[in-house]
């Protein structure tokens, strides 16, 4: 395996571990959210890189899917943290927006 791939893998790996540590330790909610978000971004990168390395274009579909779904997940988490409900604060939000 090419050296650059190894470096790439290690780099992504270290980043993921760091993100994981942050997610585990907290301490605030936002630390965790950010860590998870980062972790998932790195997963996207990792999958894309793996696809590139192994010459499997289907992995790109996977990466794309992650990217899309993660956005939805993050919005959901943020809304939960901010309002404690998926629906309750909508009215205010509508008015303010």
């Amino acid at each position: 395996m090419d050296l650059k791939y190894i470096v790439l893998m290690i780099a992504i790996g270290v980043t993921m571990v760091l993100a994981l540590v942050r997610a585990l330790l907290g301490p605030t909610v936002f630390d965790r959210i950010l860590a998870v978000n980062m972790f998932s971004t790195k997963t996207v990168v990792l999958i894309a890189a793996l696809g590139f390395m192994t010459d499997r274009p289907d992995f790109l579909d996977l990466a794309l899917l992650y990217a899309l779904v993660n956005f939805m997940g993050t919005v959901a988490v943020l809304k939960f943290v901010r309002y404690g409900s998926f629906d309750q604060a909508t009215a205010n939000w509508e008015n303010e927006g």
Partner: protein
Amino acid sequence: MKHHIIVRVISKFLIPFMFLFALYVQFHGDFGPGGGFQAGVIFASAIALYTLVWGLDRAEQAFKPRLIEILIATGVMIYGGTGLLCLFAGGHLLEYRALVEPGHPQHGEHLGIGLVEFGVGITVTAVLTGIFFAFVRRGRT
């Protein structure tokens, strides 16, 4: 709370793309990873995102509870209907090659798989949307 505008703009931009991607997964399942189930999940995610951003009431205008119920049933019925269709066409249940004229079993397979995946997609979309709506509605009280 002006900064919500970011979320809204991006969502507006992303949701059509998610739908498109879902359709891609639905119909490209023959060639790459994915299929009806995954497509349904992505559809439902898109709808969930819409609900998160614009609220349940607007989402329910598009997807009325009654409609969701019918869609849930429709998906299963499409799947089963395909199976029964094969049966009435002279084959066994879900024997897709019976759907087309003899001699082209592969076309039959293709057609049948496409149909059942479509059924799966509809059911999964509707069920997940329905569950999500039920949760959100319940949280309202």
